[in-house]
């Protein structure tokens, strides 16, 4: 029925839109059901200094007394005209906050994503080729250990070792404290990026490593590798010509699919390292009931995850020609 490319694209777009709607409705409902009082969260410690009248004024200005459905409809109407609203805690348009924070997070997440992908694939191939040996066991155990370790805990351990005990890396922030973001040098920025990126890479390595290892083990036991061996192929030549591309398909698809997890991980890592990125803004928005900002972040995150999955699917087909047949 849905065989034409146009029909398939239309179906995909419909899925994207319906998923985005579900994400924002879900996020809004959770925020509406939250016991946190937005005004109190906004005012913070000065809550004793303001009277009930001022509270009323803030609540009215933010439209907090309107029924939730009405508030959501107003927000959705503005979004459809391209206006994402204004962040309550930063006092700036949501689009501006998103752009600022995303730029800071991009360096962190891109570094972690590339490092974990490359490192995970390389180590996975090594473990798979040397399956059953000490090398394989050490790498597999390491991967299982990291897969079960929470990101914030790994971050705290690294922070304790490298920043507190050894003093090699800064304790937090994206730039040295007392420096304006615009004044920091590239070296200083990289220095601050090092530990959060290392944390995210370390944790991100394990899924790619374990999946690649499995794919390599399967390829090594396959008929085509047996024939290649009988043809005189061996050692790393065998891996390079007959195994690598077999294992690359799953790794590529997986690495693009884990972009979503990277967002979740950066949220925790940025909190531990007080790195002012998107993750840290998400925590702030959630804890202080900044509904427009949180919905904006939810939409952007969902879009990035969807795009990541789509790109992974396309690249997976390029790497492994069989996948194209299965998908068609």
């Amino acid at each position, binding site marked *: 029925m849905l065989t034409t490319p146009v029909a398939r694209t239309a179906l995909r777009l419909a899925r994207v839109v319906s998923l985005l709607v579900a994400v924002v409705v879900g996020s809004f409902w959770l925020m509406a059901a939250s016991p946190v009082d937005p005004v109190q969260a906004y005012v913070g410690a000065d809550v004793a200094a303001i009277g009930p009248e001022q509270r009323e004024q803030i609540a009215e200005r933010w439209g907090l007394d309107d029924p939730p459905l009405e508030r959501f409809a107003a927000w959705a109407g503005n979004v459809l005209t391209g206006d994402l609203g204004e962040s309550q805690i930063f006092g700036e348009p949501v689009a501006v906050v998103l752009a600022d924070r995303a730029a800071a997070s991009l360096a962190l997440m891109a570094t972690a994503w590339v490092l974990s992908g490359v490192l995970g694939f390389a180590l996975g191939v090594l473990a798979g080729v040397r399956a059953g040996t000490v090398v394989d066991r050490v790498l597999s155990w390491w991967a299982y250990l990291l897969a079960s370790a929470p990101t914030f805990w790994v971050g705290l351990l690294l922070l304790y070792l490298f920043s507190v005990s050894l003093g090699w890396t800064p304790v937090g922030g994206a730039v040295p404290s007392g420096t304006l973001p615009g004044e920091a040098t590239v070296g200083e920025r990289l220095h601050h990026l090092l530990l959060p990126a290392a944390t995210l890479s370390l944790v991100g390595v394990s899924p790619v490593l374990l999946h690649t290892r499995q794919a390599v083990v399967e390829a090594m036991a*396959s*008929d*085509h590798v*047996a*024939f*290649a*061996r*009988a*043809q*005189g*192929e*061996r050692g790393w030549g065998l891996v390079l*010509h*007959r195994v690598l*591309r*077999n294992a*690359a*398909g799953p790794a590529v698809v997986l690495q693009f699919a884990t972009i979503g997890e990277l967002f979740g991980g950066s949220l925790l890592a940025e909190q531990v390292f007080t790195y002012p990125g998107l993750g840290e803004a998400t925590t702030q928005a959630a804890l202080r009931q900044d509904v427009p900002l949180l919905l904006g972040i939810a939409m952007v995150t969902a879009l990035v995850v969807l795009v990541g999955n789509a790109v992974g699917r396309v690249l997976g087909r390029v*790497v*492994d*020609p*069989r996948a194209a*047949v299965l998908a068609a």
Partner: protein
Amino acid sequence: MSGQEQSGGPLLQVEDLRVAFVQYERGLRRRVVEAVRGMDLVVGAGEVVALIGASGAGKSLLGQAVLGVLPPNAVSSGSVRHHGRPLDDAARRRLAGREVVLLPQGVSALDPTASVGAQVRRSAVLAGRAAPRTAAATALTGRGLDPSVARRYPHELSGGMARRVIGAMAAMGRPSVVIADEPTPGLHPAAVAEALGGLRRLADDGAGVLLITHELRGALTVADRVMVCERGRTVDEAAVADFTGDGSRLVHPYTRALWRALPGHGFTAPTIGGR
């Protein structure tokens, strides 16, 4: 065929081949399982020798041992000679893909993620051909395949095309010994005849062919001699002509039982353990 005319002995000779696997039970207790417990055979130039036996009899391990591609946890002993020259593991691996080749049949022998052209070219490189690209193109067209086949992937080939591609790859080293391991599983009769006929032609062109199979009937149509193996040992060598009637000309009881197990040969259930 092999460049130098050596007269030091038969083309391929296997003597008292033994293959054992080292296993670890619960990680600690070491156990040695003998899978091949004494196999002998000779393959001369221009002949097809069938190695017949039930699944698990160790037939395929003999092929792997001759090619030097046994699994890492296998230990082998006994001698493998090529033109009378004994081959250690390193020498077997050096000859693999050149003098001694494996000829699988199924499309699963091809790498699903590489194009046909890339794989045939790689075979040419491994076989030490001077101009791999030309050699690969010639090998494909020489088997009646269109040059466009080189750009296809294995899943885009028919079974017959895949067999011809594999044949081109195996013949790249101009081998003197061809080992065909179970070349006809699940094929329809015409494809079986084509595959076996291909082996016969290789032998008629001067190569020695070792046909490893459990399908006795098909093997008898092309083989010159039949080696029978049972539970890791070669127990009998029989002439093709002796497989006739009720098998009374077959001397060894196991060989006779194999023949009689085929329909129409006076099948009687063998008594297990013997009395």
